[in-house]
């Protein structure tokens, strides 16, 4: 009998045993409940025992799943270590793993500092992902998986099902690692940071995007932040609580634009007349009511702004900064960022704002190299025509 069949059988047995236990527990509870005086107590106890059984059941099922997947999970033999990253690879992929690891570790270490070392409890598995294209052309491209090592037992966690171009591999590894670190963040931090931090994208890219957001956002508050109002910056970054986001950060025209942008979700069924009153008749109070009623989350600035702020804090706080950020759960985000950076929050926001303003993406000007290249080619082509003959 195969490993898989064995594991399944084992799972079935466990589930059956647990089912019997649950029934027995139920009978026991019923017997207990005979006394009318003790009914309330017995119900409470019965519920507790059932809950305990449910917990045990879930744990057993997880254990069964794990043994089931372990039975099918085989790792390649070669091990490659780069920094805190451990790869298990097929021999052909060892050089690729070293390159990938070097790039990836640089990104992870640069952002998370010492906290990145905790990734050594995981292994990244590189193996062949065969597709029809690979088969027909005789080429090979790797897939990457992340597996966790607990007490020497390796269990798969994420499997990237698509094949990856080698050039993309480092980004994938970085992303898987970041997702793993993100899973350990507390909910408040994770929700505030959402979407996930991206160590593969350079810090200036976030700052450039933030600059563009600051000058093009619908919320009035972002414009105030741009001209130097730090309180407004904190509000736009959602680190200073605002009693009412819509009325404090946006003006009436902004409400209307918010509603208009969300036509797909806000103009359906019963809300059609409300939407039309807001957008067509410019009934701003209706816009506000519609936004309030729908409960759509509104943030004056996108994820790039918050990411650039966190990156500023991490850069200021040194190698232990990320650990301080994650270990300070329960405190307000502003305070946590101040702890992370080791400077007061206003200084941090001011640093962030200066960095963002300095990152203004000037791409419209003509670069000297570009201009000289055009002049060069114009001259070359002119010289070519000087060599032409007058005789036809």
């Amino acid at each position, binding site marked *: 009998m195969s490993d898989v069949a064995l594991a399944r059988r084992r799972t079935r047995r466990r589930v059956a045993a647990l089912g019997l236990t649950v029934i027995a527990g139920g009978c026991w509870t019923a017997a207990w409940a005979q006394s009318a005086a003790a009914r309330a107590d017995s119900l409470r106890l019965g519920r507790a025992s059932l809950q305990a059984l449910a917990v045990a059941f879930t744990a057993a099922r997880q254990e069964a799943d794990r043994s089931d997947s372990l039975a099918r999970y085989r790792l390649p033999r070669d091990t490659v270590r780069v920094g805190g990253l451990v790869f298990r690879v097929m021999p052909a992929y060892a050089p690729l793993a070293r390159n990938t690891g070097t790039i990836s570790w640089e990104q992870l270490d640069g952002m998370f500092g010492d906290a990145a070392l905790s990734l050594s409890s995981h292994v990244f598995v590189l193996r062949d992902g065969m597709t029809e294209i690979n088969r027909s052309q005789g080429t090979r491209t790797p897939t990457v998986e992340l597996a966790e090592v607990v007490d020497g037992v390796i269990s798969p966690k994420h499997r990237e099902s698509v094949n990856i171009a080698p050039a993309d591999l480092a980004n994938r590894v970085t992303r898987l690692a970041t997702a793993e670190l993100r899973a350990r963040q507390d909910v408040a931090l994770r929700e505030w940071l959402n979407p996930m931090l991206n160590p593969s994208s350079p810090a200036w890219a976030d700052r450039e995007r933030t600059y563009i957001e600051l000058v093009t956002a619908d919320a009035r508050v972002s414009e105030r932040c*741009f001209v130097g109002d730090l309180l407004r910056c904190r509000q736009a970054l959602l680190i200073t609580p605002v009693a009412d986001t819509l009325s404090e950060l946006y003006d009436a025209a902004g409400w209307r634009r918010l509603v208009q942008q969300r036509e797909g979700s806000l103009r359906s069924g019963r809300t059609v007349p409300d939407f039309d009153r807001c957008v067509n008749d410019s009934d701003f109070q209706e816009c506000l009511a519609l936004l309030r009623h729908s409960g759509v989350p509104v943030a004056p600035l996108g994820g790039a702004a918050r990411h650039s702020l966190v990156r500023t804090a991490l850069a200021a706080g040194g190698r232990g900064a990320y650990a301080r950020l994650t270990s300070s759960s329960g405190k307000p985000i502003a305070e946590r960022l101040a702890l992370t950076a080791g400077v007061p929050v206003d200084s941090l926001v001011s640093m962030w704002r200066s960095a963002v303003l300095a990152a*203004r993406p000037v791409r419209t000007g003509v670069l000297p190299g*570009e201009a000289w290249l055009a002049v060069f*080619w114009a001259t070359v*082509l002119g010289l070519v025509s*000087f060599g*032409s*003959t007058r005789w036809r």
Partner: protein
Amino acid sequence: MFKAILFTQWRWGRVLVATCVVAGFAIPVFSVRNAGGGSWNGPMWNALDLLASMQSYGPIYVLLAGFAGIALSTSAWAPDHAGRHVYALSLPLARWHYVLLRYGSGVVLLVPVSLALWIGALVASVSTPLPTGLHAYPGALALRFALASVLSFSVIFAVASGTKRSAGYALAVLLGLVLADLLISLFGGTPVVIESTLGWLFSSSGVFGIFTGRWMLIDV
């Protein structure tokens, strides 16, 4: 001598130059026509809309630069070709000297077009109240336009100055690229020769790199 050549070339191409001058002035002015009032972040039109509108005018600048260069270079040689180059032969000048004079006159005739675009861009950006954080780039736009038009002028000038045989060579190179792709695809490969050649020509380090930058009068 230069004056005489410039004068003849101006005679041949003055309607074209005048048309390009008007177009060069008009495009930037037209591109800001909705951007007034200063009530940014309004319900109908905000900074993002302004940028999108500016972006949509990019190809029009490119077209004008290409058109001006190609039109003037063709008009510089068309009468010579039609007169079977008798005029050039009758002049007491070396060939290179004659070509230089024609080339120089052509470039001089492109100057008013770029100048008109610069003035148009200046007028447009001065009369537009910009939202916080955005900037106008009339100088960079005019410079890019000038370089692009001179470049397209040079390319067609070089082809037109040659004999039929040299034009044939140019055509043969193009056909060779097509054939190469055809052969590659016959043998089951992905035809990439034309794409990669064009990609290089228009890449930032290629011959026509100046055409593919950002043609924005107003940008961040």
